[in-house]
């Protein structure tokens, strides 16, 4: 149909997206993709008609442009695209100027002092501001050890505009933000507070009512942790819903959530040049780069260094070093006793625990609480259960292998299979992790040719540190009253 001659003069085309985390696609008149870029794209093209596609978060917009024969260059600038955002940002879906203004204003007030050195700011809103229910209902903040620091009543509730917020000054460290959803249980996620930084948590509520709940009164509206968002800024600064860095961090979080890539070398160079005012962009971005098939470790290491110098030992930054080929000299020395915020970091941690089990110190939170961890992208969530401590000791790797082989052998017999199957259905004293190991044994028993699940395979599939798998194998063995020789 068209005949663009190769010898025809090319015209420089510059495409500028509204921000450096928006994807750009340049498409020909035959709907073939010519080039793609992030934030900015330069390409020399023959005169003609082109389609430009911009993607911000999950929003996609197309534009048609003409590159005329007599033009010396063409510059196209796309205005900001509205996208679905948990953080109350300007030019996003469900943008409520009042909620935005409250989020901004309250980020400067400290509602509660529970320590010093850093701050945690929680902001939760209803999508529609009509509901008078407090969006902070069911929310509590705890130390890693479980001590309650704050609850709904400690925060500021604006019933007219459907939002609740709480700004707590506290010691640097990892904290647990719990949400009691009623019948579905209590879930928590982790928030890391760093020296001289304020960590901002943004969430939107959703309906957690069970199907049986018919009346409006029974509706349980709680913050949805899995779609929440986290930003960071220096303490003393005010959250700016119109800032480019907040927008980029939000888009980067969405990309991490949906397996896309909206960062490149250019984004990071720009970020470091302009001072990092929202390090979460760097954390989200570095984890995106790490998920590449062939990651550029030079850039990732540089980002990790920069972020570490800003934030100190942040688990989601330290996890960037957890790979076989990492050149970090003291990699073997550092441990991650408190859980990271991101699932990707947790995966890197569990993988590393196979090479070096001491990465998760025995008895640390990451070890003890790995039972109810829920790896849901992008956040690592934890289902809070009242499970008794097993009191079991951690066996050696060799002893674990023996026990796993024994379990596999036992489940291969009719009697053993029935015993494990019954245990799965009836034994209320088995922990989630013990049940997962028993289930893996039953699965392999169904396949007569299968190899018994190894420690490596269990760590990979269940995604908990090796120390927890070893100990749970031991406790399962004890609870089922099995002896070493079966």
């Amino acid at each position: 149909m068209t005949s663009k001659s190769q010898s025809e003069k090319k015209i420089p085309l510059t495409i500028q997206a509204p921000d450096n985390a928006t994807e750009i696609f340049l498409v020909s008149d035959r709907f073939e993709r010519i080039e793609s870029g992030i934030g900015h794209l330069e390409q020399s093209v023959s005169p003609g008609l082109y389609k430009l596609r911009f993607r911000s978060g999950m929003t996609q917009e197309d534009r048609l442009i003409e590159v005329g024969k007599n033009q010396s260059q063409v510059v196209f600038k796309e205005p900001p695209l509205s996208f679905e955002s948990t953080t109350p940002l300007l030019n996003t879906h469900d943008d409520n100027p009042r909620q935005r203004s409250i989020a901004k204003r309250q980020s400067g007030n400290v509602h509660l002092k529970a320590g010093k050195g850093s701050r945690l700011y929680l902001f939760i809103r209803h999508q529609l501001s009509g509901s008078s229910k407090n969006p902070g209902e069911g929310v509590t903040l705890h130390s890693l050890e479980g001590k309650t620091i704050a609850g709904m009543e400690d925060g500021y509730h604006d019933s007219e505009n459907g939002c609740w917020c709480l700004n707590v000054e506290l010691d640097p460290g990892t904290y647990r933000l719990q949400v009691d959803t009623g019948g579905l249980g209590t879930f928590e996620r982790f928030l890391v507070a760093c020296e001289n930084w304020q960590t901002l948590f943004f969430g939107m509520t959703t309906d957690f009512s069970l199907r049986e709940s018919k009346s409006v009164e029974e509706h349980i509206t709680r913050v949805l942790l899995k779609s929440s968002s986290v930003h960071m800024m220096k303490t003393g600064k005010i959250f700016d819903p119109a800032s480019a860095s907040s927008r980029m961090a939000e888009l980067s979080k969405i990309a991490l959530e949906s397996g896309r890539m909206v960062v490149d070398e250019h984004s990071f160079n720009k970020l470091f040049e302009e001072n990092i005012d929202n390090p979460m962009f760097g954390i989200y971005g570095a984890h995106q780069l790490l998920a590449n098939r062939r990651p550029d470790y030079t850039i990732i290491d540089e980002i990790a260094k920069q972020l570490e110098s800003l934030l100190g030992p942040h688990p989601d930054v330290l996890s960037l070093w957890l790979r076989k080929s990492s050149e970090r000299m003291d990699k073997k020395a550092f441990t991650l006793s408190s859980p990271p915020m991101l699932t990707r970091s947790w995966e890197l941690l569990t993988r590393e625990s196979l090479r070096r089990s001491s990465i998760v110190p025995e008895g640390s939170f990451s070890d003890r609480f790995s039972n109810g961890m829920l790896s849901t992208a992008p956040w690592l969530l934890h289902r809070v259960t009242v499970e008794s401590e097993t009191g079991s000791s951690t066996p050696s790797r060799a002893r674990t292998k023996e026990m796993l082989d024994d379990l596999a052998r036992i489940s291969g017999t009719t009697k053993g299979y029935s015993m494990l199957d019954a245990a799965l259905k009836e034994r209320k004293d088995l922990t989630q992790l013990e049940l997962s190991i028993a289930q893996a044994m039953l699965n392999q028993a169904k396949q007569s040719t299968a190899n018994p699940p190894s420690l490596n395979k269990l760590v990979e599939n269940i995604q908990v540190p090796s120390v927890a798998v070893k100990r749970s194998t031991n406790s399962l063995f004890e609870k089922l009253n099995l002896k070493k020789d079966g």
Partner: protein
Amino acid sequence: MAADDYAIVIGISTYPGLTSLEGPGNDVDLFTQWLRKKDGGNLPKKNISICTSRFCLSKKFDPSCCEQIEEARPNREDIEKLFRPWVIAGTLGNTSGRRLYIFASGHGFGKASDSHTNPMDTALYTANADVYFGLHVAVTAYANWLSQAAVFNEIVLVMDCCRTKNLMHPFTYPVLPNTSHDPEKARKVRKFYAFASPWGNAAKEKRFMERENSTYGIFTIALLEALTKARPNRLGNVKGETIKKYIHNVIDEIAGDTKVPPPEIDLGNYNDLIWFTREDPTSHHKPLVTISLPEFRGNEICHIQNGALEALDSIPFKSEHLSVSLEPGLYKFSIEGTDRNKLIQLLNDDLEITI
């Protein structure tokens, strides 16, 4: 007739424990019609195994099964039955045919972990699923296993379902034989894996006025439109890449006011598969553009330029409307002697514009 091609078509509309859907039954009908059509998949009826909320492999379910969660069908066993012959063939090391289509529509979810070892992992909830027991079938696991076992030379997987992450429901893989496969054979299996939404996102269904006001999955409609209207290459072949591009180009338009995330389509690492070949590559549909000129004076001329800005035609308006048939592409329409012009994107549907 494509006697060596087979299809597994699943559509679950009725979920007593979850919200029921309106689209999957219609999606199944539409996709099955395409499979049977001579200028579509051209499959013999016996090669298509269908499972819906009403029947599975021609066996009707008791209508009361739709009321009780425990009795709801199809359940996991029903769906696994559809894959059984091919899993047996794969275990025995047999190649069973040229192509297997796997189509699944209903409620679904993606594996919650974002481990990139199996980024496509997606499951379809079975009819007896509810919020407590998220019973499901990991359809992608079957597709991957059959591909590893090279039971077919080509696997077409279409999943018009959500791929959101559900914390309450751990992703469970089916128990498939742990047999050794020839990696070279597996590498050469051509694939077309299409998901209505990217990982972590929801798929949408919609009522289509032009289709007797019935509800369909938006992705299924985009796919069917691509299969009907996508332009073949000069050899008459419509390849996976063409279908993929077509869907990406039309889905927003088909979705209309319903916001849909971009679908995820993976063509695998081996050669692109040829969906079908048209006997006469020139016989495809040429959409019609109707241009309206609100201030018609009687002497206007419309100039049409193609995507390379070459003059295609100059047509005088005889009334305030003018129609012209064109190949899909990008065009510029301008009115002589004025600065009025319009750039348009012409896909395969007729278009009305005002200049």
